[in-house]
């Protein structure tokens, strides 16, 4: 089973990286580009077989380690 944890800066928190990427895309001539946000994704192989348990575990991992919950929020998908 695989858990995918996506970690993004919370809404309202400055995202210097996303901002710079947005400007670079515009500079490359891409049009219609609005706000860009950059985040992290962590893919974790898990040996368990229960998707619910895997999700709970991954959420705990995110809270404890993967996300800095002071400024970041996260979401977990299990596949």
């Amino acid at each position, binding site marked *: 089973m695989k858990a995918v944890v996506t970690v993004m800066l*919370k809404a*309202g*928190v*400055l995202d*210097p990286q996303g901002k710079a990427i947005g400007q670079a895309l515009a500079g490359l001539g891409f049009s219609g580009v609005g706000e860009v946000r950059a985040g992290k994704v962590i893919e974790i192989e898990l040996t368990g077989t229960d998707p619910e348990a895997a999700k709970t575990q991954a959420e705990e991992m995110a809270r404890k380690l993967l996300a*800095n919950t*002071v*400024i970041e929020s996260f979401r977990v998908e299990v596949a």
Partner: protein
Amino acid sequence: MARDVNQALAREFGLSAGEYRNVLEIMGRTPSLTELGVFSVMWSEHCSYKSSRVWLKQLPTKAPWVIHGPGENAGVVDIGEGLAAIFKMESHNHPSFIEPYQGAATGVGGILRDVFTMGARPIANLNALRFGDPKLARTRRIFDGVVRGIGGYGNCVGVPTVGGEIDFHPAYNGNPLVNAMTVGIADKTKIFLSAAAGIGNPVVYVGSKTGRDGIHGATMASAEFGADSEEKRPTVQVGDPFVEKLLIEACLELMATDAIVAIQDMGAAGLTSSSVEMAGKGGVGIELNLDHVPQRETDMTAYEMMLSESQERMLMVLRPDRQDIARAIFEKWELDFAVIGHLTDTGRIVITHNGQVEADIPLAPLADQAPLYHRPTEETPPQPPLGPVADPVGLGAALRTLIACPDLCSRRWVWEQYDYTIGGQTVMRPGAADAAIVKLDGRSRALALTTDCTPRYVQADPEAGGAQAVAEAWRNITATGALPLAITDNMNFANPEKPRIMGQFAAAIRGMAAACIALDFPVVSGNVSLYNETEGKPILPTPAIGGLGVLEDAAQAVGYALAPGLDLVLIGTTQGWLGQSLWLREVTGREAGPPPPVDLAAERRHGDFVRGEILAGRIAACHDLADGGALIALAEMALAGDTGITVEPGGDAAIWFGEDQGRYILATADSAGLLGRAAAAGVPAQRIGASGGALLTLPDGDTISLAELRRLHEAFLPGWMDGAS
């Protein structure tokens, strides 16, 4: 605006009942929310220095070489050849506890702006850091984040981080200290100040856009930001060192023209403090139209814009006929540039937003009637004398313990994450000398830079500790051969409403002032950080000192790395002072006794003699004696130069680990000559050993190999941080 302005809200904003009464009197009516916000931040401890101002006045701030003392964004001293050094230290303690990486990073960003806003190109960063008990997982996490944050920001902006200091103590468990210092260089005839002038002149905002960063959470606890209970907005600010780098270059480019009338960074309390202070200092009025403020978020209120602490922003007053030149420069650097207001002759700050007047405050009373407190003080009682102390372990074991302990172990793991060579002018790197030496590009002149404080001394005796911190900074600069010129300070203390804490503050200032006067080492800038305590547990009083000195010829600088075949001479008097020493703490587990006294006259005499010998080219290496005493200093010299030492026999733990002040170890090829000149100058000196080989031979005949010593010295930080995430 949903909330009523009243005394309850004022209290939430941090204003006392008396302060709020004062606001009502000045305004002659109930203030608007934005007005209350302006008063609350301008009258906060941070901006108004209401608890500390009466004491700060006692610090000596003048000398013939001081161009601008406290009162500007940073201090300015004349360093010769038409140049000025501009420097200051600032704290970011609380943010670094909440979010260590961003807290430390934005601390570095903030102090850089205070320096380049005056026209200086930053050439060096330093820091002074205190952390809690290393046994706690949280301490490790904070330490890791702070180090990464300082490196992350400083490395990216391209300013070398050349020095600093780190202490650990459980008193900092819930309240680490992150003090950052920046030093810059400017033409001394082109210093930029913040006093606004020229009625009608445009007020210009440059840098990053404004978001809702850092607006205090408590004041936000209402329905006014949308009905849905969105996730609580973090009060943490995120730094963008890339924008800071652009801002440095754009500002310096603009400063080469004559466009700027006045300029100030937007630091704490952002737009409020910068606009109020610029107008206030210039004795003019200011009108701002917030519709023009570059905004990162939608639907920001006037209150939010005025209180936002978004980073990497500056406020300038420009000559109207130079506005286009300025705009072109900021556009070239892809930074926001917006005219957001103009100066008026009303003596008031008027803020409009969406066609509405959101604030209209008279500036003079906002400044003149700012609260000023003579808070009660209580002296720290003197520590009882230490009395006789038995040595439970002997010299060799104590050396092995001390050289490896968190407060004395190698800081290599830290400085190897800081770019200290960028600029190509770093003559003495971290770990090479008592002060970092940074040369001025294209000249032989160099600056010597250091940060110092021994909080356990200040705790035991605030006055002696305050004097010691200044003396140690002076000594560290002297030990390189440089002439100490001036200091910046960062007064980190606990809750000033407690008389004992306020007493610590007052006494530390007394001690600092005495040392500054005796050593001709005035204070030119500084910062005060109070309320450093968690759950009633105060930090150790920590008046961190940032010292700056000058060397006419960088080639004359000496470090402490030892070469073989030299005699080692100890300068100064050794009584064997164990009170508050690291030996006492690490070997016997006691934090007791009075700290070592500082004899300021002797300090000066010894230091002036040492500097003279170094500048005469007679000294191969020099190290001041501080934490851990003589044997630790010798071991550090041996390790830095990869050269053994045979120490003269005799003496006990008190002699070899005592922390008597005003001492140096000099390495010389001619000890007889040195001893003779010392005697003639009335400076105590004695030969204590000779260099060579690969062993440290202790006074009791015990030996320890450099390899073992190095292993012990280098082990702690990498081991502790191994596996840290």
